[in-house]
């Protein structure tokens, strides 16, 4: 099989000059990054100078929320913010440094936390109304965005009712603020040290770590959210490169037919070598595209603290990563060959688009069961899906990202996939040789066996 590398290099050069490829691969990530930082700059400028002293442990809510509330509890548990003892809500630079040393609890720090998280500090955002009607009028007049009514049975069942006008995006952020205010008010009379512990704990009352019992009897520690994120992430990479790379590949095959250069090429290079060169080139290009986009999102994610917190729980071993890459490459060869075969059978790019779903639909089947992959990655369904060559690339990548797969299953699955890759490559090669040249029209399904074996 000679000349596949010539095909590979030519396809790479050709594709890397295509404007649409360059746009998606390089311009889109750049635009996203520019838009992200542009938005951040806008946010900062609208919030004032960024040279202000560091904000004490993000407790002082600087949002533009205007929240009204009505306290209907018999005990009147929630006085208006401005009725609390007046304190300095802003921490000085020294105090801010003290606040950040969360590993070093001290009386000074506890007192400080209690001071800056006093209900008084929310006085600019939260307004108390004596009656529900007065509160509702304030919402109607636009004085406040939302109105929370703390119902009389609050202590027993925690019931709070919210009123707002039409579709109001402020409701979502205001919920956090009112919860915070309730917490601060309820803890107001607690001494500084228990206050610090309780306040910080109750703001994040449960950090759940799952322990599932594996077949070996050993407990495996994992976090369901990060599992799901991993499964989803790896799955998405596979899918995106499959759709993009496969699409480019099919297009490149059909274009050679449409431009009628294919017979000249086939007089110099074997169909299999042409296929291999094309598949590898388009695979690499798709990988570059996915890496660029993924890199952009990871980079932007690292700029947002919430996301990085979730990502910190994720650990992928080198062995797993190597296996994922092998499955990715085999998967691309498998689906790429199928896409190329569709290209070989079609007479135009438009015609080929109609048949893409025949390849992509079976490929995305594992996505339908994504929750099972995250919760029970060694179940029978998942095991079967990770054996069938059509579904195994995506299934195994998703499965490997969350659990260890027994070596026997890995070997069997990989052997089946390698067999599948060889079969589809042979098939695509046959269709290239015979069909591209002899058929002016798309063959009927009953003709295909004859084209393959004839």
């Amino acid at each position, binding site marked *: 099989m*000679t*000349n596949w590398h*010539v*095909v590979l290099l*030519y396809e790479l*050069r*050709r594709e890397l000059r295509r404007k649409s490829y360059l746009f998606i691969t390089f311009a889109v990530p750049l635009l996203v990054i520019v838009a992200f930082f542009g938005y951040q700059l806008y946010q900062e400028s609208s919030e004032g100078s960024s040279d202000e002293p560091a904000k004490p442990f993000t407790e002082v809510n600087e949002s533009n929320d205007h929240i009204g509330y009505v306290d209907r509890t018999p005990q009147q548990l929630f006085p208006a913010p401005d009725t609390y003892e007046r304190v300095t809500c802003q921490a000085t630079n020294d105090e801010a440094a003290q606040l950040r040393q969360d590993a070093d609890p001290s009386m000074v720090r506890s007192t400080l936390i209690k001071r800056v998280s006093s209900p008084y500090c929310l006085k600019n955002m939260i307004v108390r109304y004596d009656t529900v009607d007065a509160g509702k009028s304030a919402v109607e007049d636009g004085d406040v965005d939302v109105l929370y009514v703390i119902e009389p049975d609050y202590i027993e069942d925690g019931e709070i009712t919210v009123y707002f006008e039409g579709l109001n995006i402020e409701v979502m952020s205001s919920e956090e603020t009112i919860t915070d205010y309730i917490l601060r008010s309820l803890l107001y009379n607690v001494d500084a040290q228990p206050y610090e512990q309780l306040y910080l704990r109750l703001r994040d009352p449960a950090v759940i770590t799952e322990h599932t019992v594996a077949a070996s009897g050993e407990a495996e520690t994992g976090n369901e959210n990060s599992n799901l994120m991993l499964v989803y992430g790896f799955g998405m990479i596979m899918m995106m490169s499959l759709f993009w790379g496969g699409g480019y590949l099919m297009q490149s095959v059909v*274009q*050679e037919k449409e*431009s*009628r*250069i294919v*017979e*000249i*090429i*086939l*007089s*110099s*290079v*074997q169909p299999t070598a042409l296929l291999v060169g094309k598949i590898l080139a388009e695979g690499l290009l798709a990988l570059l595209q996915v890496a660029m986009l993924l890199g952009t999102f990871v980079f932007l994610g690292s700029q947002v603290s919430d996301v990085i917190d979730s990502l910190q729980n994720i650990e992928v071993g080198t062995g797993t990563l190597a296996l994922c890459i092998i499955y990715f490459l085999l998967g691309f060869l498998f689906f790429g060959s199928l896409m190329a075969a569709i290209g070989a059978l079609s007479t135009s790019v438009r015609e080929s688009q109609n048949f893409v779903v025949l390849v992509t639909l079976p490929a995305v089947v594992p996505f339908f069961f994504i929750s099972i992959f995250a919760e029970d990655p060694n179940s029978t369904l998942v095991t079967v899906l990770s054996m069938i060559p059509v579904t195994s690339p995506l299934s195994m990548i998703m499965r490997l990202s969350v659990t260890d797969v027994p070596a026997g299953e890995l070997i069997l699955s990989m052997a089946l996939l390698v067999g599948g890759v060889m079969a589809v490559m042979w098939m695509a090669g046959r269709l290239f*040789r*015979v069909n591209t*040249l*002899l058929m002016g029209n798309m063959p009927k399904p009953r003709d295909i066996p*004859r084209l393959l074996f*004839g």
Partner: protein
Amino acid sequence: MSLTATDSAICVEHVTKNYGTFTAVDALSFEVYGGEIFAMLGPNGAGKTTTLRMILDILRPDTGTITVLGGPISEKTKDHIGYLPEERGLYRNAPVLDVLVYLGQLKGMSRQDAQKRALEMLEYVELGEHAKSKVSELSKGMQQKVQIIATILHRPDLVIIDEPLSGLDPVNTQLIKDLLFEMNAEGVTIVMSTHQMHQIEAMADRLLMIDHGHQVLYGAVDDVRQRFAENAVIVEGEGDWSALAGVSSVEQNDNGRSVLLRLADGVTPDMIMETLAVSDAYHIRRYELAVPSLNEIFIKVAVSGNGQNGG
């Protein structure tokens, strides 16, 4: 790998190719000698293109053997062949030079060599300034020139062209004829396949005529035409042709300027010319043997179904 006339450039032996129940090529045998111009003739659907594709290993024969440049075709052999199919095109959105370099590299040339030679040849066909243009920006005639360059860029020993002159404008028709003669003079073997027989009958040394996948005529072009020549002459001039001794019948040709004189048994064209030379009753502007065109021969053979094979 320059071949001499005693070498076999292509040897096809008892080759058959079926598509389902349809037999495209049926037990075909022929040989192409090194350094000759060989024409494969026949109407559309005769099996010419299928035969060429089998020679080039694009299709595999069902039975029979084919040797090319002294052995079974291999990837190495392909590097010595230039092929221009009937259905020919180029990458439309790629620069001309890039396409030529790619096709040259596929034929085993280094990138530098392919680039240098492509630029030389583009200059030769007066397309030097279009080297960086996209193929789609060229006129159809220009694209044809580029296709021809792609076929011979790698200095092949054997050039195979399917319908060499189809779709070519007069300028490019002359260009390709000149190029083919030039290469042939340098020892390159040339195989052409066409259904437009009149276009290449003056170019080819030998021919193979096929119909429905069968060989109907095979041999030197002159031999074939002489074999089918009638005892008749074509004359252009004035005089009473029917009164001429030895002429059995007179036919006016289609253009009205010349007449076909069929001669009686035992009368030769030389005898008639002698008579005309001494007679004042006739003025002659043109006098030639009535040798049939390949087209006429083919129609005769195909209709009667009595193909004759020769050397």
